[in-house]
């Protein structure tokens, strides 16, 4: 068996897997979601939407309780803005989503 054929087969299969992955990403990123980021701006704050946004954006690395100490240490009048500012610097998430998460964390810290 010519091992060059195997190399070509492996490259071809890798190409196919990349193409399918692109298709997957296109399909899911274009889907209608329960909490579409572009619809959050100006929307009435919803605890459910905010919790889901936190879970999807931050929950992979941080339990909701984890950042509360830091959030609580921020001055209450500017707490939400401080958290928002931090989120803006932390990643490239949509601004509307950061506003939602900032309010979620600020509210949670206020209650704790």
């Amino acid at each position, binding site marked *: *068996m010519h091992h060059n054929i195997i190399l070509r087969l492996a*490259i071809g299969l890798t190409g196919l897997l990349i193409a399918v992955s692109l298709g997957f990403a296109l399909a899911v990123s274009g889907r209608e979601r329960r909490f579409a980021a572009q619809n959050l701006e100006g929307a009435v704050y919803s605890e459910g939407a905010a919790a889901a946004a936190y879970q999807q954006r931050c929950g992979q690395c941080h339990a909701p309780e984890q950042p509360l100490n830091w959030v609580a240490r921020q001055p209450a009048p500017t707490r939400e803005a401080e958290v928002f500012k931090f989120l803006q610097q932390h990643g490239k998430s949509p601004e509307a*989503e950061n506003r939602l998460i900032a309010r979620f964390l600020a509210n949670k810290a206020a209650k704790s």
Partner: protein
Amino acid sequence: MGTLFAAIVWFTIYVLALLLPQAVALAWDPIEIVRPFRLELGVAFGLIAYPLITSEFSLVGRIRSISVLYGNDVLMFFHKYMGIGVLLFVGLHPLLVSPGNFAQFNPLAGAPMVRYGAWSFWLLFALALTSLFRRQIRLPYGYWLALHYVLGLMIGTLALAHILAARGYSSSGVVRAVIIIYFIGFLIPMIHYRLWTYYRMLSRPWRVIENRDEGAKVRTLVVQPVGHRGLEFHPGQFAWIATGNPVITEHHPISISSSAELGPERRIEFSIRNLGDWSGQRVPQVAVGSSVYVNGAFGGLSIDREAGQGFVLIGGGIGIAPLRSMILTMKDRGDFRPVILLYAAHNFEAVIYRNELEALQQQMNLKVVFVLSQPPSGWTGERGHIDTVLLKRHLPAQFMRYQYFVCGPSAMMDEMETHLTALGLPRSCVHSERFDVV
């Protein structure tokens, strides 16, 4: 079911198995918030990397039915190349999910999900480096093999932990179930190999009857089964051999060089070339009467699989071992189809089984052609290297109906594949198997 059809069917199943986690994530999508394309592409790469990792063990040729179907070297090379593909997907996954966040590569900090992923990445990186550069870093084969297994097991386990802890698509119960099923599918061959194969090897020992020096740094171990029926194999196949307790000593892939038509004592022979490590240090010390352990037979290189009017066998170095098995088997079967053996060597000091091969020409339809690159003075036979011109000189008019088996050093096999295809032979008529993958 024909071999080719079976090979295509199993490859198709393999590709579908690679795509299944993405398909399940697509169908049972639990994500509730819009995420950017870049992040979803990173996740998609992760969902491809995981089944690639978990299927890699099945590719390495220790599953006999798969090894026989594709040939061991095909599986080894594919395993190697797809392993590099895994590294690509695993490397791109975090870079796309969280670009610029290099803290995620720190295995000692961050959330459990991040740490599992980082460990998995670095262990995979170590596995790739030790495999691609084993010879350069002088890592003995036995140590490398043990390390390869341990790292593979750790990477698979950490990848599972990473996905389950991520709670992205894996927050769907169906996706989690599929991910766990893949892990079980990953563990079963490992457990089968480690436990069941050890049990079988230990319960079926072989006694060394002879440890013969063939010259040219080659020794032949003649072994006989003790209390069992031994090994059924096709001429050209190989087996894994351990010269001590198989649980704690290395296993080495060695071609069977004796006839597949077993005698009453069901002895088989392994011809082993001194490569400096186990083959040079341990094998010469193997005492007559001691026990060895054999796991086989493996590999798809065999005249039994190919129907031809005749056979052309092209060998060099220790590659003559499986070819000898083919010749002896044909003799024992009374198979009078023509066989042409082209045996390349520097000189006669590097030739093994010379007298035996010359004698066999009188007992079967065999023509042996020695091709010496440094021939002695007065040598009137073929000299130099095997090339298209030399092949044409020795091949019969109906050479297109023959099957061709090539076994020898990699460089020689590369050349032979080129020369044989230059003669117009279809690739399906040219068969070879390589062992120097790592």
